[in-house]
């Protein structure tokens, strides 16, 4: 649990918006969706790092950037201590093999015209995971692994339910024997009664195969259940990171506190502490200065408007980016 497998270093990713001709003539500055604004994280071997935040906070962008689907403007992703920014050709493909991703929507992440067997066969043969004569056997093993019947290989994706499709996606990701698995909202498209099946599968596969998992989700209960550590993201920056037990028991950043208390409890009498955040998430086109959360923070002080707080270690545990809980500013 100590060696770093994958680390992001000050990752910045902005999506430029196309300027209309009128804006161009009016000399308006180009706008950009500031999805990631300096994210530094560190995934340790065998752990699950949970990423939570509201929609538009950049958590999916982060997942996709790490999977290599987006190229960050600046910052670096290091895999086993080696920068991946200059990866090309074979090195890029090898990185892709070792860092796999499972997508949120199992209805769009599987090619509707490929039979499950062909899908797995393709992955196995492109990366030469098995000699040609061993491929059929491996397909059966993979289907067993994700607890699907073996005759699934001859079927097309539309013949499966959402939960089964997500198992197929997991089988495909595992076929290339990755070290890191990025799960972007793994179960949020699934029915509640099916979610537990898939979560259980992920947990046992992780233990059996020693996978390192980045678990991105908006369901806080789920993140707490599967994660060793959790990072809370707000408008493209990590505001707090720490052990799952510590962070959920005693969140320190005001945003973490509000977020956790907003998740409705199953107990009608457990109302949580009644922090109701005023206002809504500011547009990522136009992120507030200083601490991005100051516009909604019930405790904001003048300094919050001016200086962006850095992530700093908290005496109890984890790291927090807040002027007000940072001991050096007290």
């Amino acid at each position, binding site marked *: 649990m100590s060696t770093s497998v994958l680390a992001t270093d000050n990752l910045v990713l902005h999506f430029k918006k196309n300027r209309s001709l009128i804006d161009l003539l009016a000399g308006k500055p180009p706008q950009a969706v500031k999805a990631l604004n300096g994210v530094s994280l560190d995934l340790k071997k065998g752990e699950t790092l949970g990423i939570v935040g509201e929609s538009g906070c950049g958590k999916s962008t982060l997942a996709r950037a790490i999977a290599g689907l987006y190229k960050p403007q600046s910052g670096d992703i290091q895999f086993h201590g080696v920068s991946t920014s200059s990866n090309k050709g074979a090195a890029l493909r090898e990185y892709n093999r070792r860092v*796999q991703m499972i997508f949120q929507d199992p209805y*769009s992440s599987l090619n*509707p015209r490929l039979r499950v067997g062909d899908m797995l066969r*393709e992955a196995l043969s492109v990366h030469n995971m098995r000699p040609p004569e061993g491929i059929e056997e491996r397909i059966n093993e993979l289907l067993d692994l994700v607890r699907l019947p073996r005759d699934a290989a001859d079927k097309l994706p539309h013949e499966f339910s959402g939960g089964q499709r997500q198992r197929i*996606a997991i089988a495909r990701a595992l076929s290339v024997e990755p070290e890191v698995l990025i799960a972007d909202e793994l179960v949020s498209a699934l029915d509640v009664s099916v979610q537990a099946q898939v979560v259980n599968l992920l947990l046992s596969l992780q233990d059996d195969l020693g996978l390192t998992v980045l678990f991105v989700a908006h369901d806080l209960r789920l993140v707490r259940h599967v994660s060793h550590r959790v990072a809370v993201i707000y408008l493209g920056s990590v505001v707090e990171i720490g052990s799952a037990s510590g962070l959920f028991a005693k969140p320190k950043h005001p945003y973490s506190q509000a977020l956790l208390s907003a998740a409705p409890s199953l107990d009608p009498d457990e109302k949580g502490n009644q922090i109701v955040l005023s206002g809504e998430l500011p547009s990522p086109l136009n992120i507030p200065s200083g601490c991005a959360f100051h516009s909604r923070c019930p405790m904001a002080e003048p300094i919050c408007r001016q200086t962006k707080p850095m992530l700093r270690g908290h005496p109890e545990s984890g790291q927090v980016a807040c002027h007000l809980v940072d001991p050096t500013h007290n």
Partner: protein
Amino acid sequence: MMLKRLLPHKTQMLVLLRPGFLVGLAILLGSLALAIFPAAFAPFEPNAFNYSALKQPPSFEHWFGTDNLGRDTLSRVIWAYSVNMQMAFVATIFALVIGVTVGALVGYYGGIADAIFGRCVDAIITFPFLVLVIAVVAVLGPGLTNMYIAITLVGWVYYARLMRAEIMGQMANDYAAAGKVMGYSDRRIIFRHLLPNAITPVIVYWMTDMALAILLGSSLGYLGLGAQPPQAEWGVLIAEGRNFITTAWWLSLMPGIAIVLTGLGFSLVGDGLADLMRPRG
């Protein structure tokens, strides 16, 4: 291999039994048979003069009548199938292949190539199709081969535009992203994953386009820019009959009917294929 994956599911096969599709298919198969074996069906030589039977109306001996040189119109219409069906295929297939490839690449990579492509399309589409083709033929000179070149030069743009839009639509699905994460090459993602899912509208458009190609080809033939007389070609036949439209209506009408019928066949089959190749049940 690709065809296997494009083709359908048991339940979708029911489309094949629809009367519209069956009629269309019958027309096309019949046309194809006539095109490949005209000699087997034509009662006379298409270019054999018969001065004892000039401009005869349809009769038991000459079903479609004869022209001013005594040539049997039915035989000429049948022999024209070879040329006109060839037109449908040759004038579109290169446009299809070029258009699909360019459209897929441009749609997948986007960026500058896409911007340049967009401008080219705008420029070409501004002109009416026929005017542009005539302009190209005028430069290259009349004749079938030059006509094919002209139609391909203009026609690929329509395929490319359609393909680009379809590919971009498919890219919104995560299976393309999943392919990248799996470490697949761009070529594999484009041609094995995206293309089979994006090609259906192109194939359907191709069917209509083949009908259009026949129309265009015979229009050019009529204008003297395509097939050259005495070759039997529907446009040429109609042009030849033009001078006798009041005295020998069958000369222009019969090839006209052949054009309409073949066009109908392509459309009906196109509709059926659209239903047939939709993914999922």
